[in-house]
């Protein structure tokens, strides 16, 4: 029996507003509220709400026999909360059925796994907490931004306590191996790997509504035939796609929803297939091998590497300048700064700077607010310049406040020490004077001594 693993990625960035260089130092607000709200509302109406409704219907109809997995970035959750709470509510209803699994991500949908282990784990933790508080279950399987994976990232994720992780079944990773089995991380074999079936996923994600495709139109029957055609001993076919595929990338009138419903019904009607979700699959199946991925891979474009985000000088400069601030950020607990820090890390900002837009126009243009990658870079760097300025100012003032406190403490310490010395001296001399005699005699030598030390202290303070 082959397992079908359906996983949907949900993410939308906080798009930056047009931030000119003369805004640096004068405006601390970076986001295009209007664009963000309208994009979220538009996609909610075209995709999230109708697609969630469809999934709920299918689950109500087929019960345990239909299962899907999601990962929703923290940034997307933030935006649903702000602009479309009904979307959040519909995801909650899906969660209540227990047939939907929510995977862990980086909160900011960032590429931090490539550069900073500490920040990476804190973002993952933050996201897991958010998912648990929203949907009641702590994620056991991790899915990195854009399916970025390498041996090291996998081992770091295992170190955070995750049991499984998703990755791209890229040809340069797999070689002769098939993505349709369970694998393990090469450093830590406890971490199970589910690999995306590139061809079958892209048939739906990119080619479904492309009329120039020789297989157009794609029917559910035809698609299931392809699933059957895969190796006889194949264990799991991982179909990982962006959720926006349903209704947004392929509009409703392309028949994508009908396709999806029919596909589900056919699969459930056949004994040779079943639906499952990552956390169950990694327990049910035995891994067949380890996978070596020394250099990070992703699910993007033809190359399945990082070139869409970190492929040119502009992207690298922006990325390095951003993460150079990590140390400073860790010194502050200012809420506004931390929010911006998270929003600025979102991978989309770097994606917009890709010069690959000129060759791979279609995919790179989804809700891209910029006319050119150069435009995207200038805007981002202006924002980053202002953010850096604010951060330095804040940390600077926090540090100077700390210095002030330290100096004050030091002065107090010195004062205490001089007083202590005085007391010691007095105690040394006291037994000589204090005898069986009365208290009156004792007062005389004590008084001038106290006055003296008092004067000394005030003198010092001046």
């Amino acid at each position, binding site marked *: 029996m082959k397992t079908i693993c359906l996983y949907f990625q949900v993410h939308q960035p906080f798009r930056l507003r047009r931030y*000119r*260089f*003369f805004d640096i130092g004068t405006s601390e607000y970076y986001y295009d509220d209007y664009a963000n709200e309208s994009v979220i509302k538009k996609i909610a109406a075209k995709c999230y709400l109708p697609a969630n409704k469809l999934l709920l219907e299918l689950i109500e109809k087929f019960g345990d026999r239909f299962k899907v997995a999601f990962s929703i970035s923290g940034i997307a959750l933030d935006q649903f909360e702000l602009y479309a709470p009904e979307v959040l509510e519909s995801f909650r209803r899906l969660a209540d059925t227990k047939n939907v699994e929510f995977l862990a991500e980086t909160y900011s949908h960032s590429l931090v796994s490539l550069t900073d282990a500490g920040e990476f784990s804190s973002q993952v933790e933050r996201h897991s907490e958010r998912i648990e508080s929203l949907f009641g279950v702590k994620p056991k399987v991790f899915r990195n931004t854009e399916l970025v994976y390498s041996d090291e990232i996998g081992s770091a994720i295992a170190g955070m306590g995750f049991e499984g992780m998703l990755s791209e079944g890229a040809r340069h990773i797999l070689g002769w191996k098939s993505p349709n089995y369970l694998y393990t991380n090469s450093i830590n074999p406890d971490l199970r790997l589910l690999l995306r079936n590139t061809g079958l996923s892209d048939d739906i994600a990119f080619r479904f509504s492309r009329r120039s495709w020789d297989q157009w139109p794609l029917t559910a029957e035809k698609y299931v035939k392809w699933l059957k055609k895969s190796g006889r001993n194949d264990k799991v076919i991982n179909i990982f796609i962006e959720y926006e595929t349903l209704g947004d990338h392929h509009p409703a009138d392309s028949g994508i929803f009908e396709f999806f419903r029919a596909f589900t019904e056919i699969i459930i009607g056949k004994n040779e297939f079943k639906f499952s979700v990552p956390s169950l699959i990694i327990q049910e199946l035995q891994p067949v091998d380890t996978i070596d991925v020394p250099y990070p891979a992703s699910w993007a474009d033809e190359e399945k590497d990082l070139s869409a985000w970190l492929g040119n000088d*502009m992207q690298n400069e*922006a990325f390095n300048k951003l993460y150079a601030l990590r140390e400073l950020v860790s010194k502050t607990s200012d809420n506004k700064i931390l929010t911006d820090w998270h929003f600025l890390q979102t991978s989309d900002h770097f994606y917009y700077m890709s*010069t690959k837009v000129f060759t791979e126009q279609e995919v790179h243009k989804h809700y891209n607010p910029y006319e*050119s990658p150069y435009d995207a870079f*200038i805007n981002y*760097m*202006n924002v980053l310049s202002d953010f850096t300025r604010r951060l330095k100012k804040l940390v600077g003032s926090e540090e100077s406040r700390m210095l002030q406190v330290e100096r004050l403490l030091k002065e107090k310490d010195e004062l205490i020490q001089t007083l202590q010395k005085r007391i010691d001296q007095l105690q040394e001399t006291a037994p000589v004077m204090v005898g069986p005699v009365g208290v009156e005699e004792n007062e005389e030598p004590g008084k001038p001594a106290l006055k003296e030390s008092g004067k000394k202290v005030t003198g010092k303070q001046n």
Partner: protein
Amino acid sequence: MFGWEFPPHISGGLGTACYGLTKGMSHIPGLDVIFVVPKMWGDEDQSTIRLLAAENFPVRRKYVEMQGFLKEMTFLEIHSRIMPYMSPEEFAKTRKKSRTGTSVYFNTDHIGKFKFSGTYGPDLFQEIANYSLIARVIAEDHPFDIIHAHDWLAYPAGIAAKEASGKPLVIHVHATDFDRSGGSVNPAVFEIERRGMEIADKIIAVSNLTRKTIIEKYGIDPCKVVTVYNAVDPAGDQDGINFSKPLNGKIVTFLGRITLQKGPEYFIEAANKVLRKLSDVHFVMAGSGDMFPRMIKHAASLGITDRFHFTGFLKQRDVNQMYRMSDLYVMPSISEPFGISPLEAMQSNVPVIISHQSGVSEILKHAIKIDFWDIDAMADAIYGILQYNALSRMFKKLGKTEVENLKWENSALHVKEIYDEVLSQ
């Protein structure tokens, strides 16, 4: 082929384009070009005399072998006084000057508006008429298959040649009067342009922007108008490799005729915004034109002339020098049919900002494009390129390759296809 200027005497994009195109054509087997160009003789006094005794227009035939041309080209130079980029008014002024013995500025770049307020000089139109007369003679004397006329001064010549020979006419629109005048079109020029477009069998536009103007403003059938983009000649050896900048800090350059069409005031406004934020940067406005004095006054009134410089007219050698000095080139043209200069800047490893209102923006990817009126966007782009080094690095790397792929051979092939199509009709 009827043109109005050809190297070494070129004063603008048209001469460069004619040169590049014919050079590209020389690489096509079975295609021979006779280039007819009106030319002033070198000695002004003499020419004045000859012109006054203008019964016979002498035609000088030359067979020129030019560098980079694969074959010899026939050159016909007509003795005429037509000067490109000169309004009828300017033309009259220049002629008067030359009669009185002062020198004629061949290179004066004044284009200006064609203000026909009763004082226009009829001479220019007379010259155009003369040019077309000779064109008729040439058409009768020389064997050829197709006539190709560049821009409005040459249209009447093209028409005359067509009438004399019955051969098809292709006109090449490098600019229209809508571009030159910034909206206030000279009706007489418009009429010449419209007539040329109507009689032509095919019209070549240098960009879709120009094609649109031809269709919309001149009412020409869209099927008749084809876009063929210009290209750029490969950069030759640059002298003075160990060239050092005379100024400290970065240099942002505007280079072109200082006329309404080129949008110089937007450049000054954007410079003003940038200078308020950055201290270590200089702006240069190179070129001359009718708006020159106004621009100086404008910069002075903003109080930025300590870091905003004017060079006046630059010779080709100085132009190359200027490019090499620059860290950024800005072309904020209000209406630029094509615009070769950004390509030249990119050849010199200079990043460019160009306006959407230029034909060249239709083909360039590795340039920042802004609307000419959007001073904020322009200032922001300037600031970005100066401040964030990765940008310049990217532009230098990708821009140069991009420009190197724009070859005149390809444009020439495209033109040849149009010829074939016209001849087969």
